[in-house]
C-alpha cells in the first residue's frame, strides 16, 4: 500500500522500507517511524475502540500520553496488549492488531453500548443491575466481565527474556529534550558521571517536532551534536528507550530500558531491563504534555493534539490530514498552522478561543468530516489540531508525596516544595515553555547539580535559541450544546460525568477520580487530569487551585511485570545450594527435595520399588539393621576459636559447655533472649581454644548472625572468633549397627572401639589413606552412629567410597525422609518441635538450662508460665488401632471431653510410619503430657475429618535407654 500521507520532510530514513502488519494487512514504513506515524502515513485513521462506549478512536498524540491508540503487539504467547502505537518503534515484521472490539474494527458489535450511553454514565454500576437480585451472578456480572478491559492477555507464560541491573551516577538527567541535553552537557563537562535517560528512541524531545533553531542549527541537528559530544565522554551513559518510572527512597530511581522491543524477537537477549539507578542528584527535564479542550464529540478519529500534528509533520514526514483545522487557546495553534502551510498542507481555519470562537460539535463516525462553530458555521475538515495549553510533566516530583502548586500564568500545576531529595526540575517540566529558557534552565540546573557534588570543571555556556513566546488563555471546555464532550478519552469520561459526580456528592478530587475513573489506566490521565479538574472547578463554582489535584504514584507509565521480575523465574527464581555429594546422589537415583535453600536427596529409588514408601522403609531398615550413609553437610557448621571460646559458648548455650573436654562432643540447646528455644546442635571441642558447633540446616545463617552479634556487641572484650565452615566440610552420617565395622576400614590410624572412641567422642584424623577428616560419634537416629567430615571437594568421592567400602556391611544411602522417620522413632525434636514457641521444659530438656551460670535466655526461660508443671510436654503417640495413620496438626482432646477449642490439650507435631515398629507413630505437645503416659486421648483433625484414639507414651518410641547409640 502506498504511503499517501507521506510528505517530503522529517527525520526518517527514506532509503529503507520496513514492512509491517496491521490487522493482518501489510503496510510499509521507514526506520525512524513509530507504528502510529506509519499508520497515519498509510492513511489509517481508525485504530481502536473506546473503553466503555466502543466509539471509533484514532491517534490522538505522539507520545506516551496516548489515550486512544492502544494496540496488541505480537502473536501467541508473545502478544502484549495495551501498547501505545505512538511510542512503538517500527521494525521490519512488526505485527499489530487493534483491540477492544467484537467483529472487525470497523463494525464493532459492542458499539451498541454507545446507544445505551444514558444508562452507562459515571458510577452506573453502583446504581444499576440491582434487580432482579438473582441476575447479578448469572447474567450481569458475567456480561460485564466479558465486556470489561481493553486488550487480551495471551494466557500463556511470557516466553520473553527480561533482566534487571543497577547503575550509579552523580547526576541522572531524565529527558533528552532541550533542557535535558543542556543539563547533561553542563554536568558532564563539569566532570560528573552522568546518565541521560529518555523514553524516546531518538534524543531531542520537542526539538524533533519543532522548526525552531538553536545555535544556527535545526533543533534536531543541535540535539544530534549534543549527543555526539556526550557520547565522546567516558563518564556519560546515554540511555534511549528508557523510561524513568519512579523515585524511591535513598536516591534510587526506577527505570525500564526497552532493549530489543524495536528489533523483534532476539533470542537470549532481554527485551527489557529494569534498572535501579542510584543517583546523587537528578534533573527532571521530562518536558510537558499538551492537553485538549472538551467540546461536543471531540473524540472522533482525526482529532488530535496540535503538538502531535507538528510532530507527525516535522519529525515523521506525515500529513495527519489533507485539510486541517486548528482549535486552540494559545500561540501553539498558530505555530501549527504555520508549519502545516509550510509543508503544503491545507489549513481550513484557525479557531482561537481568544478571538471568541470555538467548536461546539463535530461530524464523522469513523473519521472526522467537519466541525461546527459557535457561530453556526460548518467547516469541512479531515483533521482537527487541538491545543488547550501545556502541563509540565511533574509526575516524578510527587513520588514522595509532595503536592504540585498552581500557576495562573501558564494555567498549569508545577512542582511544589518538598520534592525528593536531590531532585530538581528544569525546562518545560518546570513551567518554562520558551526554548531559550529551557536551554538556560537546563544548563543551570545541570551545572548546579555537578557543583554541589564538588565537580569544578567548566560547564561551558547554555546554547542560545530564537525566542518564540508562549501565551495561553485558560479555556477548558465548551459549555454550550448537548453533545457529549470527552474529558478522558481512555476511560470514556465526559464533562457530564464530572457534573453528575459533583451533583451526587463526589466533588472532592480523590472521590471524583474513583467515581468516574478519570485519570486511571495506562495513560494515567496525562491529557485529561487537568481538564477534569477544570470542569469540576467550573461546576463547583470555584478555582482549579482551590479544587486541588490528585498526585502521582509510580510508575510514570506502564512497566511490564516481566521487567520487574527480571530473570528471577524458573531456575533463577531463587538460589539453590547443592550439597557436596549432589552429583553422586543424582547418579544413584535420588529424588530431591528443597530443604531451606538446599537441594537434598529425600530418598534413593531402587528398581522394583513401587513408590517412595518402599524406598524410605527400606532405608530405615538398612539403618536399623545394617548401616546407612546420608549426606548431612547442610547442617550449619561454625568454628569458634579463641582464648575465651569455651566461656563464649557457655553464654550462648543454656547448658554448660566450658567443662567439655577436648575430644568430646556435647548436645547444646540455644535459647533466644525471651527464653524460648532458638536452635539446637552439637559443640565439639577440637582443642582448648577451638570448637566446631553445628546448627540446624534452616537456622545456620540465623545462628551465625546471633553468635556474631553476641560476640561483637554483647561481649566485645572476649577473645573469640567465628568462622562459618558450613560450605567447607562435607559431612556424612554413618549410622547403624555395622557403622563401626565400616568406618574401621576407612579411618586411618584411629581406634574406634567403644572404649577408645565412645559415644560423643570426636577426633581429627585422616581417612582413605590420607585425606584429612573429622570424626564425631553422634547419633540422630538413635543407632550406633558417626558423622564423618572431609573437605567439601572430597564430598562426592566420600559417598562413593563409603558406599563401595560398605557394600560388604550392607550399607546403603538414605535420604531426608528416612532421616525424619528415624528421628521420630527416637524422639528427637526437629523443625516441627523447634518452632520458636517451645521451651526447653516442653521438649523435656528443662534440666539442660543450667542454674550454675548465666546464658542468653536463661532468666526469661524461668518465667512463671514457662515452667508450670502442668504445661505442654513432648510426648510420643501411637494409634490404638494399629492400622490407623496419624496426621500432623491434629488436636488433642480428652476421650470424654467436648470437641471445642476451650478443651484443646495440645497438638501433633510430627508423624511417620515406622517400619521398625510396624505402625504409625507421632510426636506432639500434650498438656501435662509427661504424667499421662499410657493414657488414651483423641487426635482430632477437623481438616482431614479424622478422630482417632491414640495412646500417649514416651517420645522415645525406640530404645529409650539409649543402649544402641552407646553400644
Amino acid at each position, binding site marked *: 500500500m502506498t504511503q499517501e500521507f507521506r510528505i517530503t520532510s522529517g527525520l526518517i530514513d527514506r532509503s529503507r522500507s520496513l514492512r509491517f502488519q496491521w490487522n493482518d494487512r501489510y503496510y510499509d514504513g521507514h526506520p525512524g517511524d513509530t507504528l502510529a506515524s506509519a499508520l497515519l502515513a498509510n492513511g489509517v485513521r481508525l485504530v481502536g475502540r473506546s473503553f466503555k462506549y466502543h466509539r471509533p478512536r484514532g491517534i490522538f498524540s505522539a507520545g506516551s500520553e496516548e489515550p486512544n491508540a492502544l494496540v496488541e503487539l505480537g502473536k501467541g504467547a508473545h502478544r502484549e496488549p495495551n501498547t501505545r502505537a505512538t511510542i512503538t518503534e517500527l521494525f521490519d515484521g512488526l505485527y499489530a492488531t487493534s483491540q477492544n472490539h467484537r467483529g472487525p474494527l470497523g463494525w464493532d458489535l459492542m458499539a451498541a453500548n454507545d446507544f445505551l450511553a444514558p444508562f452507562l454514565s459515571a458510577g452506573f454500576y453502583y446504581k444499576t443491575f440491582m434487580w432482579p437480585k438473582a441476575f447479578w451472578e448469572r447474567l450481569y456480572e458475567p456480561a460485564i466481565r466479558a465486556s470489561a478491559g481493553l486488550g487480551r492477555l495471551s494466557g500463556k507464560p511470557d516466553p520473553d*527474556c527480561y*533482566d*534487571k*541491573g*543497577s*547503575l*550509579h551516577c552523580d547526576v541522572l538527567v531524565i529527558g533528552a529534550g532541550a533542557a535535558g541535553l543542556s543539563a547533561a552537557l553542563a554536568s558532564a563537562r563539569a566532570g560528573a*558521571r552522568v546518565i541521560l535517560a529518555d523514553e524516546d528512541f531518538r534524543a531531542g524531545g520537542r526539538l524533533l517536532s519543532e522548526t525552531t533553531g538553536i545555535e544556527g542549527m535545526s533543533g534536531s541537528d543541535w540535539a544530534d551534536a549534543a549527543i555526539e559530544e556526550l557520547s565522546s565522554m567516558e563518564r556519560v551513559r546515554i540511555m534511549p528507550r528508557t523510561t524513568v518510572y519512579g523515585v524511591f527512597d535513598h536516591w534510587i530511581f526506577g527505570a525500564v530500558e526497552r532493549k530489543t522491543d524495536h528489533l523483534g524477537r532476539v533470542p*537470549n*537477549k*532481554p527485551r527489557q*531491563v529494569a534498572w*535501579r539507578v*542510584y543517583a546523587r542528584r537528578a534533573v527532571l527535564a521530562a518536558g510537558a504534555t499538551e492537553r485538549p479542550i472538551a467540546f461536543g464529540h471531540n473524540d472522533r478519529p482525526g482529532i488530535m493534539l496540535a503538538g502531535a500534528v507538528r510532530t507527525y509533520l516535522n519529525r515523521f514526514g506525515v500529513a495527519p490530514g489533507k485539510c486541517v483545522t486548528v482549535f486552540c487557546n494559545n500561540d501553539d495553534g498558530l505555530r501549527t498552522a504555520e508549519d502545516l502551510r509550510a509543508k503544503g498542507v491545507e489549513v481550513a481555519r484557525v479557531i482561537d478561543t481568544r478571538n471568541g470562537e470555538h467548536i461546539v460539535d463535530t461530524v464523522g463516525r469513523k473519521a472526522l468530516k467537519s466541525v461546527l462553530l459557535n457561530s453556526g458555521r460548518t467547516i469541512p475538515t479531515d483533521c482537527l489540531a487541538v491545543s488547550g495549553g501545556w502541563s509540565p510533566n511533574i509526575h516524578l516530583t510527587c513520588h514522595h508525596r509532595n503536592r504540585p502548586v498552581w500557576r495562573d500564568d501558564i494555567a498549569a500545576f508545577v512542582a511544589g516544595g518538598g520534592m525528593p531529595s536531590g531532585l530538581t526540575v528544569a525546562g518545560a517540566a518546570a513551567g518554562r515553555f520558551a526554548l531559550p529558557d529551557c536551554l538556560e534552565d537546563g544548563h543551570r540546573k545541570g551545572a548546579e547539580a555537578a557543583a554541589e557534588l564538588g565537580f569544578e570543571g567548566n560547564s561551558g555556556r547554555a546554547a542560545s535559541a530564537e525566542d518564540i513566546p508562549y501565551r495561553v488563555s485558560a479555556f477548558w471546555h465548551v459549555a454550550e450544546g448537548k453533545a457529549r464532550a470527552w474529558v478522558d478519552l481512555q476511560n470514556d469520561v465526559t464533562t457530564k460525568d464530572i457534573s453528575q459526580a459533583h451533583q451526587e456528592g463526589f466533588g472532592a478530587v480523590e472521590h471524583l477520580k474513583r467515581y468516574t475513573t478519570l485519570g486511571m489506566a495506562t495513560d494515567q490521565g496525562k491529557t485529561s487530569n487537568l481538564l477534569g479538574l477544570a470542569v469540576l472547578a467550573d461546576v463547583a463554582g470555584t478555582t482549579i487551585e482551590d479544587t486541588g489535584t490528585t498526585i502521582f504514584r509510580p510508575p510514570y507509565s506502564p512497566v511490564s511485570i516481566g521487567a520487574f521480575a527480571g*530473570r*528471577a523465574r524458573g*531456575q*533463577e527464581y*531463587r*538460589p*539453590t*545450594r*547443592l*550439597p*557436596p555429594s549432589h*552429583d553422586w546422589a543424582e547418579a544413584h537415583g535420588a529424588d530431591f527435595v528443597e530443604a531451606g535453600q*538446599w537441594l537434598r536427596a529425600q530418598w534413593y529409588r531402587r528398581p522394583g520399588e513401587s513408590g517412595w514408601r518402599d524406598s524410605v522403609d527400606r532405608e530405615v531398615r538398612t539403618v536399623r539393621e545394617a548401616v546407612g550413609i546420608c549426606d548431612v553437610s547442610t547442617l550449619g557448621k561454625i*568454628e569458634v*576459636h*579463641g582464648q575465651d571460646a569455651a566461656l563464649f559458648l557457655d553464654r550462648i548455650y543454656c547448658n554448660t559447655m566450658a567443662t567439655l573436654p577436648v575430644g568430646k562432643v556435647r548436645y547444646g540447646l540455644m535459647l533466644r533472649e525471651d527464653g524460648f528455644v532458638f536452635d539446637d546442635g552439637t559443640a565439639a571441642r577440637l*582443642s582448648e581454644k*577451638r570448637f566446631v558447633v553445628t546448627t540446624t540446616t534452616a537456622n545456620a545463617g540465623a545462628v551465625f548472625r546471633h553468635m556474631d552479634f553476641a560476640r561483637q556487641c554483647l561481649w566485645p572484650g572476649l*577473645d573469640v*572468633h567465628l*568462622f*562459618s*565452615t*558450613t*560450605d*567447607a*566440610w562435607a559431612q556424612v552420617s554413618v549410622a547403624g549397627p555395622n557403622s563401626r565395622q565400616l568406618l574401621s576400614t*576407612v579411618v*586411618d590410624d584411629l581406634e574406634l572401639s567403644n572404649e577408645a572412641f565412645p559415644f560423643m567422642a570426636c577426633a581429627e584424623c585422616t*581417612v*582413605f*589413606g*590420607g*585425606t*584429612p577428616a573429622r570424626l564425631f560419634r553422634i547419633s540422630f537416629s538413635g543407632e550406633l552412629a558417626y558423622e564423618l567430615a*572431609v*573437605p*567439601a*571437594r*572430597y*564430598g*562426592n*568421592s*566420600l559417598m562413593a*567410597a563409603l558406599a563401595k*567400602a560398605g557394600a560388604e556391611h550392607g550399607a546403603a544411602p538414605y535420604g531426608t525422609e528416612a532421616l525424619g522417620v528415624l528421628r521420630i522413632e527416637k524422639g528427637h525434636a526437629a523443625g516441627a518441635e523447634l518452632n520458636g514457641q517451645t521451651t526447653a521444659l516442653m521438649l523435656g530438656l528443662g534440666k539442660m538450662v543450667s542454674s550454675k551460670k548465666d546464658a542468653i535466655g536463661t532468666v526469661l526461660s524461668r518465667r512463671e508460665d514457662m515452667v508450670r508443671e502442668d504445661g505442654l510436654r513432648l510426648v510420643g503417640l501411637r494409634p490404638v488401632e494399629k492400622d490407623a495413620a496419624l496426621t500432623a496438626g491434629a488436636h488433642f482432646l480428652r476421650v470424654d471431653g467436648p470437641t471445642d477449642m476451650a478443651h484443646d490439650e495440645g497438638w501433633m507435631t510430627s508423624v511417620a510410619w515406622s517400619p521398625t515398629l510396624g505402625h504409625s507413630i507421632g510426636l506432639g505437645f500434650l498438656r501435662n503430657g509427661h504424667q499421662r503416659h499410657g493414657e488414651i486421648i483423641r487426635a482430632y483433625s477437623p481438616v482431614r475429618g479424622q478422630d482417632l484414639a491414640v495412646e500417649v507414651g514416651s517420645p522415645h518410641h525406640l530404645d529409650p535407654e539409649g543402649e544402641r547409640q552407646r553400644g
Partner: protein
Amino acid sequence: MDKQGLIATPLVPDLETGPEVGRNRIRHVHATILACAHTDFDVDEVRAHFERRHGMSLPLTACSTVSGTVRAIRTATDQVLVLDLEGLSDEAPSEDERLYVVDQGDAWVVFRMEGPDTLEALRRMTTIELDVLAENAAARTQISHIGTIIVREDRDRFLLLTPRSFGRDILRTATTSLRHVMP
C-alpha cells in the same frame, strides 16, 4: 579396602577450560584460602606476622592488598581472608598462638570473570558501584541473593568469591549476564 585417598571433584566438570561467552571467559580459580582472625588486628605484631607470612601489608577494613599471586581481603575489623591464587595445597594451616587461622579453601569457590563485557555483565548482577571499585579493591555484595565478594583485578577482570554450595548458581548467573550484554 584399597586406601588410595579420596578424589577431589571439580565444582563444575568443564569449568577448568571454560566457558567462553563471546569475547569473555569465566574460569574456576583454584585458590588456597585462609581466614585469619585476631582480636586486635592492628597491632604491630600482627602486621609483622602478616608481612612475614604473606609478604604484603595488612589491608584496611573492606579493602584488599596484593603481592604476587597472594591477595588479602579484610572482611571484618578483626578478620582477613588470604587467597593464594596459585596455591594447590590442601594442607591445613597450623594454629598460631595469637593468630587464629582456618582453612577456607573448600568454603569458597573463586571464579575469574574477564573480557570486554564483564563490567556491563556485573551491572546486571550486583548493586555495588563498580565504577568506583578500584583495581585490587574488594567489596561484599549479593548476587542473586547469594553473599559474594567481588575483587577487581583489572578494568575488565574480576574475581567472584562465593560459598561453594552456590557455585553453580553463580556460574549460571554470570554466564547468563554475559550472554545478555555481549554484542
